[in-house]
């Protein structure tokens, strides 16, 4: 009897065990394809890269930490480390701040949905397309790049002085060039007498402003006592027939030039030429010796905009493009957190007379802190991997100045450098930098499970 029940029990346990084994096999069959791919193409490469990073370029000689030392010695990789630091500090901070401000403001308008849609749209666009978009916007020629067109427009709004970059005086005339690019009268002049003609050449007719009028009338004007008059004109008669050094009937004045009356090396009076090129100084000392000067800025090249993609500004410029892509993301995520805030706390504060800034500073931001942290950490992880945008926007010669870890890893391993040891070390560094985020994710996950 006992043996029978024993056998039966053992049999039941057997079936159960067999069923359990079967269940486990089925479960593994479900998970296996994914696990195999992850193992072969993610886990194994991580281990391989770590190992490879201890070998030299050819992969035959063990160099220990040599590649990691080299990373901070080689100027190119060192620049990549520095630029990456700038990216990681600046971009997430700006994005979180911008996202927060916009999320708070957008709640007050009726077209919030449309605004959010518009700002989120760049998230759907590839870095390549965004790169081309901004390469176009950052074009240095203000006739092509929209940003410089705007910058030059604003600049000219505030600095409306005309400029004649090619203008110069005739050799051996009454006016000579000084060391700093200005022009001044060779002989001393005194108030009274006749009007002083200052002839310039080298201005193409197209460069003369359309409002310019003939200078002859002004050149014939008589100065009063204590007054110094003169005219700056283009000493060139279109079609020929003019006399050098004299104001002929067809010759036009040059408007918008700054003129200074200088005494003992100091500018005592300033004036701007009118449409006929005339200028006058009042209240000068009768009989005093003055020099009339045309300062160098009259002849400066016109402002041509900012060199956005030059070595100095290329990183900030690319960060700008990155902001364009990610601000919508930060705004929407923070906005979601915002709408989950307890409305009564905000309302109570408002009823108690707190102004909007106080509500924002003392209630909204502290309550949003967890969301802001998540946004910031997410952005740090993503900023670390930025590659395409730099690869596309930075023009060839400036690529070295814009390089970050991800692009440098590419250049060193595949882009001509062909040092896979150093390349592996750079990729391992990238991995090490995201380890805190890894720990953050794992911790957050375990907390959500318990």
């Amino acid at each position, binding site marked *: 009897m006992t043996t029978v029940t024993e056998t039966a029990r053992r049999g039941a346990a057997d079936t159960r065990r067999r069923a359990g084994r079967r269940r486990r096999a089925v*479960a593994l069959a*479900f*998970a296996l394809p994914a696990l195999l*791919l992850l193992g072969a193409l993610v886990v194994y*490469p991580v281990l391989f890269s770590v190992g490879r990073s201890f070998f030299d370029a050819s992969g035959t000689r063990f160099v220990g930490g040599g590649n990691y030392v080299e990373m901070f010695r080689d100027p190119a990789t060192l620049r990549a480390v520095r630029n990456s630091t700038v990216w990681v500090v600046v971009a997430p901070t700006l994005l979180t701040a911008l996202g927060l401000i916009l999320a708070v403001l957008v709640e007050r308008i009726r077209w919030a949905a449309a605004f959010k849609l518009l700002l989120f749209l760049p998230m759907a666009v590839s870095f390549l397309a965004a790169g081309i978009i901004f390469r176009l916007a950052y074009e240095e020629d203000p006739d092509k790049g929209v940003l410089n067109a705007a910058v030059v427009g604003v600049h000219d709004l505030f600095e409306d002085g005309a400029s004649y970059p090619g203008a110069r005086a005739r050799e051996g005339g009454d006016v000579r060039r000084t060391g700093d690019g200005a022009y001044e009268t060779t002989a001393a002049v005194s108030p009274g007498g006749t009007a002083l003609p200052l002839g310039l050449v080298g201005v193409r007719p197209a460069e003369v402003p359309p409002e310019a009028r003939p200078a002859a009338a002004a050149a014939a004007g008589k100065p009063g006592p204590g007054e110094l008059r003169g005219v700056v004109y283009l000493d060139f008669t279109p079609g020929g027939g003019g006399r050098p050094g004299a104001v002929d009937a067809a010759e036009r004045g040059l408007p918008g030039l700054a003129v200074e009356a200088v005494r003992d090396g100091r500018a005592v009076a300033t004036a701007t030429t009118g449409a006929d090129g005339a200028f006058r100084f009042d209240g000068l000392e009768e009989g005093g010796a003055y020099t009339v000067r045309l300062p160098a800025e009259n002849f400066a090249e016109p402002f041509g905009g900012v060199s956005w993609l030059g070595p100095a500004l290329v990183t900030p410029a690319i960060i700008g493009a990155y902001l364009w892509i990610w601000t919508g993301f930060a705004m929407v*995520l923070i906005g979601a957190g915002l709408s989950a805030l307890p409305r009564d706390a905000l309302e109570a504060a408002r009823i108690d007379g707190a102004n909007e800034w106080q509500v924002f500073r003392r209630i909204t931001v502290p309550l949003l802190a967890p969301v802001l942290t998540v946004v910031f950490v997410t952005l740090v992880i993503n900023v670390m991997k930025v590659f395409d945008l730099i690869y*596309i926007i930075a023009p060839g010669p400036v690529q070295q100045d814009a390089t970050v870890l991800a692009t440098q890893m590419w250049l060193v391993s595949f882009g001509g450098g062909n040092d896979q040891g150093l390349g592996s070390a750079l990729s391992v560094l990238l991995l090490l930098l*995201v380890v805190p*985020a890894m720990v953050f994710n*794992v911790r957050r996950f375990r907390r959500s499970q318990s």
Partner: protein
Amino acid sequence: MTATAPVLVEPASPAPLAPPPPRPRRRRLRRLLGNGLVQAFLLVVGLVWITPVAGLLLSSLRSAQDSASSGWWTALADPGQLSFANYAALLDDAGMTRAFWNTVLISVPTTVLVVALAALAGYAFAWLEFPGRDWLFLLVVALLVVPVQVGLLPVAKLFGQLGLFGTIPGVVLFHVAYGLPFAVFLLRNYFAEMPREMLEAARMDGGGEWRVFVHLVIPVGRPALASLAIFQFLWVWNDMLVALLFADSSSQPLTVELQSQVRQFGSNIDVLAPGAFLSLVVPVVVFLAFQRHFVQGVMAGSVK
């Protein structure tokens, strides 16, 4: 009244000299004025956001000569500059059209594979028992943030040995592997929310795990699967880095084809601008069509 306001007051100041609350009318006026400022500010921000894309669109419709001599904004005053000639030329360009189809041939299979494999694994991690399950899932969570760069070199070597280097299947496999951690993570968490009784009932009705998976888990998981599919599709459609390494000239997608033309930037805006616009039109249409899913997908996927 002051009793309920301690949050606003610096703890250090014992007797806050709160200004008297403004009269309701003045307050309303100020709010109205403030609101006007907010609207104006956001309008400017919106304009700043839309200008670069408008620039690309208008540039793509202008001739090379126009682009070389003046800015795209001159077309606003002179719409006669605009024509579809560049797009017509693009469609006649064999390299571009092949690159476009390569992009499709890479993105669609990747999306299908990632969603299928991740759904299977996600279900296993959520509801099936196997040795090392919890430990393996923590590994998946850890792999979420592994940068693609770490995989480039070793996988290139591996694919070289397997004959996958420079082929579309190679590009697809790499994308699938690096898409899986997030996909498994997302779906496992979604499936784990399903009520246990529902699953037990389905198992009682007979039919193995496969039946339960196909007839219950997949239909219930539809929203998460859709978000994942859209996110994954856009991710791969927009990729340049992976294809730059793993694809050759016959298998390269649109992004890589365009990238190779960026070197002559300035002289070829009539090719680059319409090409870039073509490459962004598909994601934008997908985005507008599946807005809700897309935003959810990106939000969830941002941990990558």
